């Protein structure tokens, strides 16, 4: 019965089993290189050494939005093609995306502390990330609230797409709101043309974190597929035991 449906995921499992060790190694290497380069980068004349938090904060902020994009693609896969791997991909990505968003918030807060004197400022960028975090949590709550996995996948897919449409609107609104109430944000990375000394470590860290996402995502997808297999086996067991004569 459902074992036939998991044929495609079986190929996925064997493929990722071979791929993951390499991905993990590449991620680790790139992260090390990135961190070294970040440490070696010069201090900002204004912010001192604390500007280097940017090398973690900015990639995490990019990834928080990128992961929602990945989930949106998976959502299309669920709604349009009803592909079982799409369900798994979406479900596995949500907590990882939430974690990246949370890291972006924490590093953003630590970055701003020396300048603001407080751990939080309602500036446009951080506020947008906070709202995104709330949306991630709401999505995870929806995943957990619906019992049946395929129904949960479809409900989550609709919410993901609605969220994707709303994110630009929310970003625009928050920017607008911020310029209305506050002077210009103090969290500037250094203007439109980033100095090469900052740009290269930033890009390396961005790629490293992206690889980290891919590695974690594939691993989480494997876990989810295995979890579903266990559930299917358990249900078969229940069905068989109820068919046996009392």
């Amino acid at each position, binding site marked *: 019965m459902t074992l036939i449906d998991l044929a495609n995921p079986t190929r996925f499992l064997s493929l990722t089993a071979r791929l993951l060790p390499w991905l993990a190694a590449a991620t680790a290497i790139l992260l090390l290189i990135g961190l070294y380069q970040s440490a070696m980068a010069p201090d900002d004349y204004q912010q001192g050494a604390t500007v280097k938090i940017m090398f973690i904060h900015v990639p995490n902020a990019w990834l928080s939005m990128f992961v929602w994009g990945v989930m949106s693609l998976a959502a299309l896969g669920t709604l349009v093609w009803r592909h079982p791997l799409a369900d798994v991909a979406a479900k596995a990505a949500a907590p990882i995306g939430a974690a990246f968003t949370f890291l972006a918030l924490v590093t953003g807060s630590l970055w701003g502390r020396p300048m603001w004197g407080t751990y939080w400022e309602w500036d446009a960028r951080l506020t947008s990330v906070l709202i995104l975090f709330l949306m991630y949590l*709401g999505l995870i709550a*929806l995943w957990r609230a619906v019992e049946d996995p395929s129904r949960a996948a479809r409900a989550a897919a609709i919410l993901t797409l*609605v969220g994707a*449409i709303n994110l630009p609107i929310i970003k625009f*609104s928050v920017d607008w709101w911020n310029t*209305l109430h506050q002077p210009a944000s103090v969290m500037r990375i250094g203007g439109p043309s980033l100095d090469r000394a900052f740009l290269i470590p930033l890009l390396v860290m961005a790629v490293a974190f992206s690889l980290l996402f891919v590695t974690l995502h594939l691993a989480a997808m494997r876990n989810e597929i295995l979890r579903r297999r266990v559930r299917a086996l358990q249900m078969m067991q229940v069905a068989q035991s109820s068919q046996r004569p009392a």
Partner: protein
Amino acid sequence: MTALIALIRRDLRIALRVGGGALIGVLFFLTVVVLMPFAVGPDLALLTRLGPAILWLGALLASLLTLDRLFMADHEDGSLDLIVTSRTPLELTCAAKALAHWLAAGLPLVIATPVLGLLLNLDATATSAVALTLLAGTPALTFTGMIGAALAVTLHRGGLLLAVLVLPLSIPVLIFGVAASEAAITGPVSFGAPFSILCALSLISFVIGPFAAAASLRQGLD
């Protein structure tokens, strides 16, 4: 068309006949406004300055709490089964239900605003500005909230989840609703800019809301 009118009429009839009807939402709105001075202090100048914000928050929460039953009641008595499979496109049906809900729950809030404005010592300009922005913005709250109501229809503890899902999506409406009100009161930004964005948000929700809600209802019945 007859079908949609029949649906709107039915929903309005039920809303007006069942326990409190439209007045419950207004009562909640009043309660929230009354709670504010206890939290913030009775300083009238402060309350006036916060006035548009308090009224908007009250309207937002009042809308949210009544959205819970939008589809739930029909789901529980089996009407939703018949509505989803009828000849009328489900998107139009959802839009009709949202319209009925706004007429029964959102519009009374707008009408109650002048009275509540008195409690916050808002002058005529301020009150009419807030009322006008609520008139333009509460439809957006209903049509966006409908998506959460449709997603949560089959869940028994849907109320809180609905709020968590819908509130982030309602933030732009809140921002521009309050901004437009304050622009009318104090300037420096003109009233027109945020108000037209508010209207645009409502119009966008008229399209996205019914489509997303219809899709959610269909998958929810499976």
